[in-house]
């Protein structure tokens, strides 16, 4: 971070050499411009711009990703430096207004699916680097995303966002404070602004705004997944995690004996968090440990603390079957134990302990299995886990196509009862709802 300390000179040189990048004579890029692009790239990754502004098969930052919200679908926009379709013609001030205030010269008021309430805190230095990065280093895409935003009234009126902004968008730029001795201010900046953890982990009020009093206390529905409480509460939050565990989780999506990242969190790890420097990861972990603890109503035991499989006669894992051809061809059993043993225990092992190296994680001591809410467990079974990490590509196949709703209900209940929270109850409606929600 020290490289960015001579801010004003960087700014001047950066502006002066901007045109050189595309000059036909192919003059070498100035080092400081390179530094700015590098810094901007890092900020873009830390802020995970790609998560929303790039589709799976699409070009980087060309937009088009559909975000489902309770009010309809919001489609992310093209933020490449295309003059016609992207941000190519924008001044730095216009760019900063879009990022910080949700105000676009082309579209008018942006919807708060764009986490500008978080980005409002972006420091001036990072904002400048981001601008340089997006205008100079990103490939322009001369195309509008095909799908269009479609919201229900009154949210379909972009102007309505003015009132919303007056109420909820009150952020001010923060100093990025990389030099605070304990790193905690840097951590706060990363958590609140760049990584915008609150966008998913802070509950929202009925107007889709984050409830600032419940910062990071969890959000029950992010595309079907629960974003859990990650306050420093020992029982409901991650107070019981060590800093090393938090860092391992952010970097590789797995803290053995605690939790694994799937769904949108897997994407956050894959596209953003694993690129953070070790010192930034440490700053995040340190800061998270200081976030005001908020306990979930009625919770008395941490989700990851269910560490024992219930005792059963091991002969039940090892049983004869009816070998008549009809029975051998019948795959519709709803016996959770049989389904678990043959669809899940191959990797997670019959007693749920996972493999010794935890490449296949334990289901005991697992926050998803120890939760009271069945949704993340059901979502993982339905859609699997898929995340690129610095430690390899982690992949669990989804079972939505192979197993019926009844079977997934039975497996989830078996897993919870035997390896996790006995209070976790799964109903077929949970499964049906989640299967449909993600369609």
């Amino acid at each position, binding site marked *: 971070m020290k490289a960015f300390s001579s801010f004003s000179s960087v700014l001047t040189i950066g502006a002066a050499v901007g045109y050189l990048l595309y000059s036909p004579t192919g003059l070498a890029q100035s080092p400081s411009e390179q530094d700015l692009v590098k810094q901007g790239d890092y900020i873009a990754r830390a802020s995970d711009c790609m998560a929303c502004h790039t589709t799976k098969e699409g070009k980087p930052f060309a937009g088009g990703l559909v975000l489902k919200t309770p009010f309809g679908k919001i489609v992310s926009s093209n933020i490449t430096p295309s003059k016609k379709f992207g941000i190519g013609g924008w001044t730095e001030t216009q760019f900063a207004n879009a990022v910080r205030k949700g105000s676009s010269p082309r579209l008018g008021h942006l919807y708060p699916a764009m986490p500008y309430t978080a980005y409002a805190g972006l420091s001036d230095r990072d904002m400048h680097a981001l601008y340089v990065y997006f205008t100079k280093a990103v490939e322009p895409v001369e195309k509008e995303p095909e799908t269009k935003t479609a919201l229900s009234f009154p949210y379909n009126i972009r102007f309505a966002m003015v009132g919303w902004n007056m109420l909820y968008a009150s952020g001010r730029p923060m100093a990025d404070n990389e030099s605070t001795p304990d790193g905690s201010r840097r951590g706060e900046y990363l958590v609140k602004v760049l990584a915008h953890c609150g966008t998913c982990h802070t509950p929202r009020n009925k107007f889709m705004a984050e409830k600032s009093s419940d910062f990071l206390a969890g959000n029950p529905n992010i595309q079907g997944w629960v974003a859990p409480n990650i306050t420093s509460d020992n029982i409901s939050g991650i107070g019981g995690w060590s800093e090393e565990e938090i860092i391992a989780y952010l970097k590789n999506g797995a803290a053995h004996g605690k939790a694994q990242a799937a769904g949108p969190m897997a994407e956050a790890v894959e596209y953003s968090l694993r690129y953070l420097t070790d010192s930034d990861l440490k700053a995040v972990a340190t800061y998270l440990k200081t976030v005001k603890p908020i306990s979930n109503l009625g919770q008395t035991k941490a989700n990851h603390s269910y560490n024992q499989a219930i005792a059963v006669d091991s002969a039940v894992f*090892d*049983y*004869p*079957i009816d*070998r008549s*051809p*009809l029975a*051998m*061809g*019948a*795959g519709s*059993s709803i016996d959770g134990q*049989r*389904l678990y*043993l*043959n*669809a899940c225990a*191959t*990797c997670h092992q019959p007693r749920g302990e996972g493999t010794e190296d935890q*490449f*296949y994680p334990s289901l005991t001591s697992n926050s998803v299995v120890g939760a009271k809410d069945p949704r993340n467990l059901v979502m993982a079974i339905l859609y699997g886990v*898929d995340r690129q990490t610095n430690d390899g*590509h982690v*992949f*669990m*196949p*989804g079972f939505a*196509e*192979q*197993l019926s709703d009844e079977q997934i209900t039975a497996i989830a209940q078996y897993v919870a009862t035997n390896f996790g929270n006995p209070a976790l109850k799964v109903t077929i409606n949970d499964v049906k709802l989640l299967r449909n929600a993600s369609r």
Partner: protein
Amino acid sequence: MATQYDADVIVVGSGAIGSNAAYALASQGKSVIILEAGEWIPRWKIVENFRSSARKGNHDDPYPDAPWAPVSFSPGYIENTGSFAFLPGMLHLVGGTTWHWAAATWRLLPNDMQMKSLYGVGRDWPVTYDELEPWYVKAEYALGIAGSDTEDQSGLNPDTSYPPRSAPYPVPPEAETYYFQRLKARIEPEGYPFIHEPNARTNQPWDGRPGCSGNNNCMPVCPIGAMYSGDVHARHAQKAGAQILTDSTAFKLEKGEGGKIVAVHCRSAKGVDRRLTARYFIIASNGLETPKLLLMSDVANSSDLVGRNLMDHTGIGLQFLADEPLWPGRGQVQQGAIFRLRDGAFRSQHSAIKHALTNTVPNRAITEHLLKKNIVGPELDKQIRHMAARWVDISTVFEQLPHLENRVQPSTTRKTSNGIPMMKIHYDPDDYIKAAVPIAKQDFANFVQIMNGTVIEDNTGFQNRDHIMGTVIMGDNHRNSVVNHECRTWNHPNLFMATTGVFPSASVVNPTLTGIALALRSADIIAREV
């Protein structure tokens, strides 16, 4: 003339080859029906059937043996009249027999396809390697093949890449097992090239499949679906609009005017028949059921070659104990091959030889062996571990030549519960492979000597390798073959064969990838005509 058809194309058989052809057609907007004698069975159920089996070495055992859709090991389903019991493990369920293959996906060598002109034996293919090459690439990407881009798979020229390829393998090769590393380090310097075996067990996520983690159960069922099986493309075909009719055993192809096939008749378990019409028909029911269906229907057989020229990679095996712990059984059930004699002038005299390194967890074979010797008590546990660490298992294959008298026919005496003839096979291993046996056995002796080993078994006699070829043979005219270079029958312009049964020569490599490549090519031809 506005004829109504049930589909543009009907594919008989939902295995890897049929399903890939069906998907290729359906994804181009053609209406496709796939007929399958068996049912959809989810993976978890097959895993349960396996774990609770008392005969785990019997690879058909985890699959239902329904009286109306028997597996090939069903007692009496295949009657043998030759000197060798030809009994390949073949299944009836959506996805077909690739549920229990070991997923070796070699390409043929260009020379494998010119046996007659180069070596004066067997037959030439009416299609060249170069014509097939782009289809190999498509097949490899469909299946997510893990392979080495830097090896000479003929074993002849180390440090070159061969046969030629226009695209890299989609997935890098898996790490070499310690077992493979050690055998290679000691045996290869004595003139035996060790080559990585390209395979359809992806080792990184591919097309919804997880990477292999060495469950060592490719046969009889991959418990996690890392290994490709035909149900992957059956499902893809279904999503692309193809209709899969299960419990539908095709038993008759109906001829119409102008030599065209107009309909296929299929029958359910309950004996209910159905007639389905289409513009084109692809028969993809493996190398035994396909010719059986043609013979039952009296189609495509003006050459009298349907069902004849039956070939397998009939082989032999070796088990011995090495002088050092190698720990087979970690990783997949097989990993590489030893190719000293895959190709060369010797093929005018005798068959080529592939020695494949088997890497199965050997505890069952070892314990059966020790118990026969009445070894018990603490010594039994000690010996199991000692031998399990040192067990070397080599599976050797030869290339049988096509012979008219080696053939499959519908049974005239035995029928399934719904009245469809079972089959009769006559098969004799030929002199061409018998001439290679002493050479392979000398290799065995060399391996044992190099590894300072103790032989457990080096005289197995001929074994099945389940690679059925030649029965609807491909050729350059209607008198010497059943299908042309497009795999189109000479007699019926709208009837194609998608099976390894079209192979005119066997080579020594597993045939499924080539079968899929040929079928994708046929599907492309059909798509342009239909």
